[in-house]
């Protein structure tokens, strides 16, 4: 595994499909805790949804080394890059950003071969059309994680071999982790 190479490839992937590549460069803000950045402007103006791009964040604070946001159609390519780097998919999950009308799918990758490296890949998809390609072809373990995410958020993983309720009962018709879920 070559950390620099992986970062380079992911960076390239993240900058792909940016709305306007020449204008907005991917945000690269090492060291500075990204949390403050997001927290402060909140009081002034409603926070903008995060732009695609790669951040090398402070591991001691965030618990991850690389945080990259990409377009939803690129998650499989990201998985392939990380698979080639012999990384493991630890978990797939979602976050409901209801204010931005977006759902975020988060992939946690880690490296079990020695040096500690954790990479988080995220992709945002519109809330009313929650479709994203599955990475279960690349990582078999994603199968269950994606099913779980489907349970909780109703995200449709396209091409998933068995997108059924995993933890919730087969006949339920709600997705509890959506922020507009009001109990049943």
């Amino acid at each position, binding site marked *: 595994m070559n950390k620099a190479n992986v970062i380079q490839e992911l960076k390239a992937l993240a900058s792909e499909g940016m709305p306007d590549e020449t204008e907005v460069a991917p945000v690269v803000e090492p060291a500075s*805790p*990204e*949390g*403050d950045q*997001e*927290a402060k402007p*909140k009081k002034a103006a409603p926070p903008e949804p995060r732009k695609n791009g790669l951040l090398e964040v402070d591991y*001691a*604070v*965030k*618990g*991850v080394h690389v*945080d990259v946001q990409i377009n939803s159609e690129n998650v499989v390519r990201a998985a392939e890059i990380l698979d080639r780097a*012999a*990384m*493991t*998919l*630890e*978990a797939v*999950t979602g*976050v*409901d950003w209801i204010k931005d009308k977006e759902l975020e799918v*988060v992939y*946690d990758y*880690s490296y*079990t*071969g*020695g*040096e*500690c490296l*954790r990479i*988080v890949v995220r992709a945002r998809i519109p809330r009313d059309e929650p479709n994203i390609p599955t990475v279960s072809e690349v*990582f*078999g*373990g994603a*199968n*269950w*994680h994606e099913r*779980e995410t489907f349970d*909780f958020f109703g995200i449709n993983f396209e091409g998933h*071999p*068995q997108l059924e*309720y*995993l*933890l*919730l*009962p087969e006949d339920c018709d709600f997705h*509890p*982790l959506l922020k507009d879920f009001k109990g049943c």
Partner: protein
Amino acid sequence: MSSQTASQNKEHFEINLGPQHPATHGVLRVKLLMDGEYVVDAEPVLGYIHRMHELMGENRTWAKYLPNMGRLDYLSALSYNLGYVELVEKMAAIEVPERAEYIRVITTEMNRISSHLLWFGAFVLDLGGFTPLLYAFDDREHILDLLESVTGSRLTYCYFRFGGCSNDVEDEFLTGCLTFIKRLRSRMPMYHNLVTKNVILMQRLEGVGPVSAEMCRKYGATGPVLRGSGINYDVRKNEPYSVYPEFDFDVPVYNECDSMARYMVRMDEMDQCMRIIEQAIAKIPEGPVMAAKVPKMIKPAAGDYYHAVEAARGTFAIRAVSEGKNQAYRMKLRSPTFSNLSLFQEASKGMLLADALAFMGSIDLVIPEIDR
């Protein structure tokens, strides 16, 4: 998935392991498609004790979510406690006094031994040997007594607090730990003679349930399953947290990739736990067990946080998304056996029914943690 197409074969039939089957510790159902004694396809069906812990995490303050940790994996509750408090301490930048860190390590490792002992007993029970279970319980009882004298509970601990531990430990506890270690050391040869070296057990475990390192990687398997496949990965070593870097311990790794390897990893891990505890007791400093300044209402800065610890069954990680409020915006619990179990379907194909059970036992399942 394939069960529909495969079941058209007339010679195949389906049987259920669980949810009321004596082989599934807890409530797991595995739909087995069998061809005589051979497993054609095995599909675990989860969710029988799903409690939506992640949603609870979004509705409670950071502090109020603490007791939930003991309910995830009730056998090594302290590892989960530790993972959560460390995450919140990281988020809120709380300094933990050193004595508290040592106490955390001692109690967590004791808890890990008790978890492994219970697994040992239950595993041999799965294989049809009843007696080792009760010998293991005898030893485990001592741990529970010790931990009860410190934490007040016997199983679902809620002992750690943000910034330390809820109370200090006495010297009796520390000497008690040392006495227990002495006792367990003297009992280990008995376990090995009775169980590990038993020819029947070896026949049942050797070469059964092969899980290659590559498969572990693809499925995100961690913990003893990964280490039984020859990969030296332990969060305590690779990504040190708490005061683990100060201790000298080995990560047992076996290359056989079979159930026996996983068994041996856990047995050796108990030895290593004892080593850690001994060193911790020797080094434990005096001082407070709670940080001087812990904010009343914890409001971590907005952003994503991730923290992983080594629980008894593998990497337990929490991803918390904070919006700067006193409760989480999103709380993702990444439990190790969820990933470990997910490889069961692929790995168990073509196994004998009895071997599939041995394999399932060697993964060491704790269902509440899978279902969350």
